[in-house]
């Protein structure tokens, strides 16, 4: 890496990337997007005013403000763990079983103190017999591994905590 990007640079880059991804994903026309990183809140406002109950597939004409949950790697204020809010946690994107290594007996993907790069695999969540590689979305130092090998995890559960390197 050339030049040390600051935490703000990372955050901005991430917000930009998330925003463009969101715009690509949602049905327009959009009126406003608000993003906050403290509690990882994303608000999207469509043109119009109706707020349908989500009982089934929504039609593109629906206009509603929907908070969108954080995906893995984004900073989340984890409900458990000390001062989780001040650290970035890589969270489980699905319900499943967390594995720290590629196979039994192999060395773990990451250990406390390791520096991780964006896109680096930090573990696996097995769900419905599928192995899903979990990656860090941005760089940092592993401060804590929050889930033991082979333990069940729920959606959005913090797996590892990162601090700025």
């Amino acid at each position, binding site marked *: 890496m050339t030049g040390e990007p600051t935490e703000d640079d990372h955050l901005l880059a991430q917000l930009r990337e998330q925003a463009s991804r969101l715009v690509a994903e949602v049905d327009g026309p959009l009126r406003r997007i608000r993003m906050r990183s403290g509690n990882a809140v994303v608000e999207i406002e469509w043109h119009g005013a109706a*707020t349908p*109950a989500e*009982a*089934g597939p929504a039609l593109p004409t629906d206009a509603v*403000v*929907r*908070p969108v949950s954080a995906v893995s790697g984004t900073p989340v204020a984890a409900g458990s763990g000390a001062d989780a809010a001040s650290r970035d946690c890589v969270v489980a994107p699905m*319900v499943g079983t967390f594995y720290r290594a590629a196979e039994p007996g192999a060395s773990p993907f990451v250990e406390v103190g390791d520096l991780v790069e964006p896109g680096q695999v930090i573990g696996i969540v097995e*769900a419905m017999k599928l192995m899903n590689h979990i990656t860090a979305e941005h760089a940092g130092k592993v401060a804590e591994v929050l889930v033991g090998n082979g333990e069940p995890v729920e*959606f959005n559960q913090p797996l590892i905590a990162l601090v700025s390197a």
Partner: protein
Amino acid sequence: MFEKLLIANRGEIALRVARACRELGIRTVAVHSTVDRDSAVVRYADESVCIGPAASRHSYLNAAAIIEAARQTGAGAIHPGYGFLSEDPDFAEICADNGLVFVGPRPEVMAVLGDKSRARALMRDAGLPLLPGSVETLATVGEARAVADEIGYPVIIKVAAGGGGRGMTVVWSAADFARAYAHTRTVARAVFADDRVYVERYLPQARHVEVQVLCDGHGGGVHLGTRDCSVQRRHQKLVEEGPAPALSAGTLDAIAAAALRGALSVGYSGAGTVEFLVDEAERFHFMEINCRIQVEHPVTEMITGVDLVHEQLHLASGAPLRIRQDEVQLRGVAIECRVNVEDPERDFLPTPGRLDRFQPPAGPFTRVDTHGTPGYVVGPHYDSLLAKVVVWAPERTLALDRLERALEEFDIAGPGVHTTIPFIRRVLDDARFRKGRYSTDLVDRLLRDADTPAKPPVDRTGEPAAPTAR
């Protein structure tokens, strides 16, 4: 019986199922989305697993996450409640493939009955009367219009894969048919990913009468009487009562017997509801079979004394039916109303928000099924049903007065929060409703009566227009 059961639902029905499990000594797993983390059922259940974000397609409709949660917690069965995955044959099959008991009928039975057009054909073969119309789906507008012209207008175009009151269009004249047909198929493709439709005679003045059945899949079955659900707005039920009022005992018996015959003919198992339309001459016509516990199931519980969720669990464990038809006694009258967080004054627009005050009614023969609590935040993500108020009385007039009293007691308040209670009270006050002589057009009439246009209305009768009830 199962040791542990996962509840694949949320809100009042999830809590209702959890309570039944507690009574039977079954441990419960509540699955929830990120926004339901602090919900009543999560607090009540023995364990909970977060399965996804707020959007239900990634959480409550996420079969993989639900199965994974069941595997993780060691649950042996899944109760799907109503809505969400409750009538999804694929989900039922996935449960079976993973060694889990799905509380509901067999997947193949669900698949057949989920296709409304195939269900019609099967019920016709079982000798149930149908409304005039097509039994097969109609692939071209020409074919469909020919059927409509033959049976006479108004007709209703229905989506074979539809349900829950969605995906139907009423057509009043031949001139509107082609456009309505195209529109219905477009909506069906978007909502149900299946654009097959069929055409039926539409009865504007009919009554929606349904029958609760329990079958064990070993050939045993009982019916538990009728419910009238004619108070509807846009095919969504607002008030339900049992037994259906103002119908002769002979008609009620004939409808119930037909319902049970129909359910048994397709090898139904578990709790199901067979829906009929009844015309002014008390002729009844089969509409559809619902393969789930229904929102209005407490009405039947109150008049029969049978706990339908207990029976669902008993039957799902593979046991034979433990109730004989001659043991089913219908006593008195029960009426349920749905309390939705919607503003009747603004076309029933959902009004999510925090409930600063939430004090449900109580008192004799008064049951409230709700997940609401003081401080509960009604979010914008899910159905707006907040509570069901159900009352019982030995006769209908007292039941109406009791429900009125209960609704008066219900204290719900929060910034921007409105409920359907004021509108329900107008329904209960309506002379047609009080007499028990009402049909599916009652709500539309009430709304028309209350409509105050900006300019003086043109009144064809010469009577002054009805004042707006506020």
